[in-house]
């Protein structure tokens, strides 16, 4: 990215989600009923949201932008905000309200877009998709609701100018370089740079950052009071704070209804026998390329 001093301080929102760690699945990951056993899976920062955070922090490195995390979830999702603060973000908002519960992507993006409007950022960054639902819908839906441009599958922000961003997209069959005016929403792909580690000083500075609800629980002797330490306050917003149509949130705002969950057991009945001959291997490669398994 080229060195560039902005005339105004940019504001960036990173949309992040706390997800069950489906990549490290143990024996008890599923309940006997076939649903995800959330208790057995550690809750983590959605990996591609981490890539998005890194892109935001890189913009901050160059332009002194302010980076704010926005996440929707139960009280413990405040961990996501803290994780962001530890890695270099400046603040965070936790969207939490019983009325948000049971939201599908439509209702989620509605709540997020309402909160984004309130923050009024120049750039919104999000991971391409979350590892629990894999829909890749929330980012684009937020952009649509805000009626702003969106760039999906971003791998790197190449340049930032007063009025536009230049972005490299990682697509199935190559790369594409596009530019867009601000404000815009960008979803970031897993091939983008990994997120930087936690920063020792940030961790020490923000370790007692917490929401008002968390503040009600007994704390360690060294926790600084929230009163007078603005930087430690993690905002908690509910329906009341973000406003909007009450029927658009949570279960009420979710047209998606899960009819049935089926367990799929992979079986080896489609096995194919190959000899070690060059021709057999060649035809296998051709087949795998043509059905997009590789390449």
């Amino acid at each position: 990215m080229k060195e560039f001093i902005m005339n105004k301080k940019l504001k960036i929102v990173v949309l992040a989600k706390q997800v069950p760690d489906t990549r490290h699945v143990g024996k008890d990951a599923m309940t006997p009923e076939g649903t995800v056993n959330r208790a057995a899976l550690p809750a983590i920062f959605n990996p591609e949201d981490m890539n998005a955070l890194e892109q935001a922090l890189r913009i901050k490195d160059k332009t002194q932008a302010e980076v704010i995390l926005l996440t929707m979830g139960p009280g413990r999702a405040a961990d996501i905000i803290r994780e962001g603060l530890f890695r270099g973000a400046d603040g965070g908002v936790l969207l939490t309200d019983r009325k948000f519960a049971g939201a599908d992507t439509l209702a989620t993006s509605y709540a997020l877009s309402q909160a984004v409007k309130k923050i009024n950022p120049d750039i919104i960054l999000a991971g391409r998709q979350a590892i629990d639902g894999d829909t890749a819908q929330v980012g684009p839906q937020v952009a649509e609701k805000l009626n702003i441009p969106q760039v999906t599958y971003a791998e790197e922000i190449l340049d930032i100018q007063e009025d536009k961003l230049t972005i490299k997209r990682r697509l199935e069959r190559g790369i594409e370089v596009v530019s867009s005016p601000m404000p815009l929403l960008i979803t970031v792909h897993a091939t983008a740079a990994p997120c930087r580690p936690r920063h020792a000083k940030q961790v020490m500075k923000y370790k007692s950052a917490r929401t008002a609800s968390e503040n009600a629980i007994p704390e360690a002797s060294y926790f600084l009071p929230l009163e007078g330490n603005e930087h430690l306050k993690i905002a908690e917003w509910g329906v009341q704070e973000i406003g909007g149509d009450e029927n658009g949130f949570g279960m009420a705002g979710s047209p998606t209804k899960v009819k049935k969950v089926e367990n799929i057991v992979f079986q080896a009945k489609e096995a194919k026998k190959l000899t070690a001959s060059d021709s057999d291997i060649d035809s296998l490669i051709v087949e795998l390329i043509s059905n997009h398994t590789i390449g």
Partner: protein
Amino acid sequence: MANFYKDNTDLKFQFSHPLMGKIVELKEQGFKDFGKFDYAPQNIEDAIDSYDKVMEIMGDICGNVIAPNAEQVDHDGPVCKDGRITYAAGTQQNHEVLTQAGVYGLNLPREYGGLNFSMVPYVMAAELVSRADAGFANIWGLQDCAETIYEFASKEIKDEFLPRINKGDTCSMDLTEPDAGSDLQSVMLKATWDEEKQTWYLNGVKRFITNGDAQIKLVLARSEEGTTDGRGLSYFVYDKAWGGVTVRRIENKLGIKGSPTAELVFKNAPAKLVGERKLGLIKYVMSLMNGARLGVGAQSVGLSEAAYREALKYANERVQYKKAIINFPAVTELLAVMKAKLQASRAILYETTRFVDIYKAYNAISEERKLTPEERQEFKKYSKYADMFTPVLKMMSSEYANQNAYDAIQVHGGSGFMKEYPVERMYRDARILTIYEGTSQLQTVAAIRYVTNGSYLAKIREYEQMEFKPEFAALKAKLVAMTDQFEQACALVAGKGDEYVDFHARRLVEMAAHIIMSYLLIIDSQTCTSFVNSAKIYTNKSEAWNNERFSYIQQFNPEDLEPFNAVKSEELPEVE
């Protein structure tokens, strides 16, 4: 996601030691930075929680970045071209991520961008890095140089160099020359004062310089023309940006291959004097050296840990005669003894570190105000302990790291001899540990005076006074008998001349070391069950090891030195 700190509870245990509160209080001097720096702690609990959280970052980086890079770094190594060194790609990544994490300058004061941590977490970080890649531990560990600058350089030099450490500038310690290895008094690199330019200039050659192309160098040079001994040497700081130093070549080494070892040519390289003239070797390098030896102790423990884990994993996975090989008594014993040596090494590592922590803190306080008589006494006591324990730690932990790496290969059998498994790299990396920063033989020289003047014995008797749980009574009785035996061994050697003492020095120092390390394991066992098995194994082994040494000393007579001395006049026949 691996985490080398969280997967090893023996590390966090160190933060619960009774001396930790005192250490933190001394280091934070009334928590004066609280309110001044937004990351400074307000009390002991806060500081220790920060140690824990930052070690978690170290454990994450070591487990997920440095360790996965180690094999490729060992294979690629650094490259020397046009007088400059380029690290292997993995080394560069390791350094970058650590810089991003803001962990360089761990124990530097906050005013210089550091975290103002005590030595205990600093040493722990070195141990973690070494477990991931012992070679990279050198590049990490050379931030020790900042400590020397902080302790001895002028304010101007401190302001110029120290803030750069946290931002990722690396250091080197340029001491060794072709004709000055263990004997640093022979250093020849010349420092000349240019009256007109008001600058020192360095000319000469340095050899075997770890991380030789660093941005910040501390250089030992002869500033006093016509002198030939240590009193003519001064210490200088050099900035790579000033020019005048080129890398002639880098060494092709047996191990720690990712860490560049350079031969350097100084041609009119400008430099600044650190501290006072003529104190270079006799004061500053000696201080730096003790820090470096503590560093090698940490490196050794980290490598031992890595070797033990590889061996344990393999012994559980490898099946022969229809059972995992760990179930064969010969393999079981190998592993249990490896673990005992590892935990004993770690016990003396942190015991020594605590002593260093306390005396260094008093030292820092004495810069600002006069110490009270009680403080002065404490300072003296702990600096003596640090001097006594450092050579024993360095020798024992590095020897055990080698033994553990050797045994880790043995557990792997033929597979361990192959490049597919990391134990062969560990075996090669371990080999330097008993050599650099003073060979085991030199550590013995440093330690023997504390044998002959009764200091180790007194410290051991102090441990003996401690209260232990009843189930440790038998082990303690053993150690008391071993201490009597050690005292007797010292008496047998005394009064028979320097040569006689020197001949038995290693045996005597090891006897003391075995007793001390057994006690430390028993002490840790009082509060944590993790050490109980090793305490038993190590004490019993020590008893046998000491019996062997005692028996040799007991039956030895002055005339038995003769056949040894014969080797000095040995002439091998030349074949035409």
